[in-house]
């Protein structure tokens, strides 16, 4: 029996192909998206018209928040929640941090950045240092204001609460993510400190708290458009426009899928997409 089972095991046909099984569809989806974005970038490079991004109140409010802190002579607190360098929300937050740091440097306002992740801490310090350098104020950069507290969620919360109570920032920016239970605590502690609050995340479970608690809130994909919006670079805007076209394509597939699932007994579209 042992020999027979060995033969049966050897008789199994080898698995091979171009794509990892189950990943072909995802690869094609990525490819279509990349082509769309590439076309829009090329259009922008060729000087052809690219649609503008609509006004995002939350990003416009960043300047107002820093301005308020300057007038009150109090610092700005910037947090990314519980970031990780592998999370796109964290990466989307970097240009905003750079922008805020540059604005703070220009207005001579103190920026406190608290971080619960060591890798992000190192990157944030470099971003802020460079922003102060670009603003012509390298001497104003204080490395002690970029603070790694701990990667333990509620210990980080305790650290931030102490900073909010002691430093009384006039503005708090909660941008990026992912955010979890700490978001609500930060928002309320910021409100108690009398800070104007600008929040933005794609963490859907925390979005209602941002909308309810912050003065300005950026919802979902708005945070990913931040770098294009701030820089006003047509090439970067092109990537956002490409993303919008892809979204229309997905909506078309969703509507078609709904119709097929409703009126046909054979859902060929779902079968095709799964294959």
């Amino acid at each position, binding site marked *: 029996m042992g020999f027979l089972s060995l033969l049966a095991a050897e008789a199994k046909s080898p698995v091979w192909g*171009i*794509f*990892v*099984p189950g*990943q072909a569809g*995802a*690869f094609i989806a*990525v490819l279509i*998206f*990349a082509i769309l*974005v590439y076309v829009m*970038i090329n259009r922008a490079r060729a000087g052809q018209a690219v649609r503008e991004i609509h006004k995002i109140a939350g990003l416009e409010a960043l300047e107002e928040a820093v301005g308020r802190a300057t007038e009150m002579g109090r610092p700005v607190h910037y947090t990314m929640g519980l970031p990780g360098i592998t999370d*796109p929300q964290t990466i*989307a937050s*970097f*240009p905003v*941090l*750079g*922008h805020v740091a*540059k604005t703070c440097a220009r207005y001579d306002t103190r920026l406190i950045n608290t971080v619960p992740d*060591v*890798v992000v*801490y*190192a990157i944030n310090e*470099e*971003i802020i240092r*460079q922003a102060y*350098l*670009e603003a012509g104020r390298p001497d104003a950069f204080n490395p*002690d204001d970029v*603070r*790694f*507290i701990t990667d333990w969620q*509620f*210990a980080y*919360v*305790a650290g931030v609460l102490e900073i909010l109570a*002691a430093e009384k920032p006039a503005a708090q920016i909660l941008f990026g993510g992912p955010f979890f*239970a700490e978001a*609500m*605590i930060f*928002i*309320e502690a910021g*409100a108690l400190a009398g800070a104007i609050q600008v929040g933005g995340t*794609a963490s*859907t479970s925390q979005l209602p708290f941002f909308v*309810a*608690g912050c003065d300005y809130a950026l919802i*979902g*994909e708005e945070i*990913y458009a931040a*770098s294009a919006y701030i*820089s006003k*670079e047509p*090439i*970067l805007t092109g*990537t*956002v426009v490409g*993303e919008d076209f*892809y979204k229309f394509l997905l909506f078309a597939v969703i509507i078609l899928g709904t119709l097929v699932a409703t009126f046909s007994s054979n859902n060929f579209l779902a079968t095709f997409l799964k294959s």
Partner: protein
Amino acid sequence: MRKEIPMILTVLAGLFVIVAKYLFAVDQLGWFTTANRMYQVMYAMFFLLGVVSLTIVHGKNIQRRRSKWIYSLILLICMYGYGILTIQQTVEGPQANWIYNNILNPTDATIFALLAFFITSAAYRAFRVRTREATVLMITAVIVMLGVAPIGDTLIHGWNNVARWFMDVPNSSAMRGIALGAYLGSFAVALRILLGLERAHLGGAGQ
């Protein structure tokens, strides 16, 4: 060159992940798993940076006798003390385990419990009927809260079904719509980094 070399490395790493994740032949080589392990090793090395940062910030507090410097001292004693203890007896050691279960866990739960009070005060601020949106928010919240609490179904039979409909239909569809946009946005960010258009992570304001 200060920004170009990291940018080239970022693009190469990004392309490597795409190739290693999707192409069968490369997947069989197991490079993706090796890269993940390398990331974990690098992450562990970065922890040293965190320890150095905490030591510098709190060391200065103690040295200059700033207000509340005593807490900085406690922090440094706890950090290095627990570090030495776990190196000596691992995290499963009797004392290390006791500290974890009887000091760290209850403190963690205490901070988490604060959330209840913060949510209440946030709800009070959010539900003040000032605008049309706040009114809609308040009415929906009352419907859902009554549906989830036992009193809702006791007062009006079937009320929890109304609340469930709000959660399953308008709430779920809105959340999925937001999530779909967010996924595409993260796609776009990844692509911008791969093409070298997004450079904020290399320092400065990104442009």
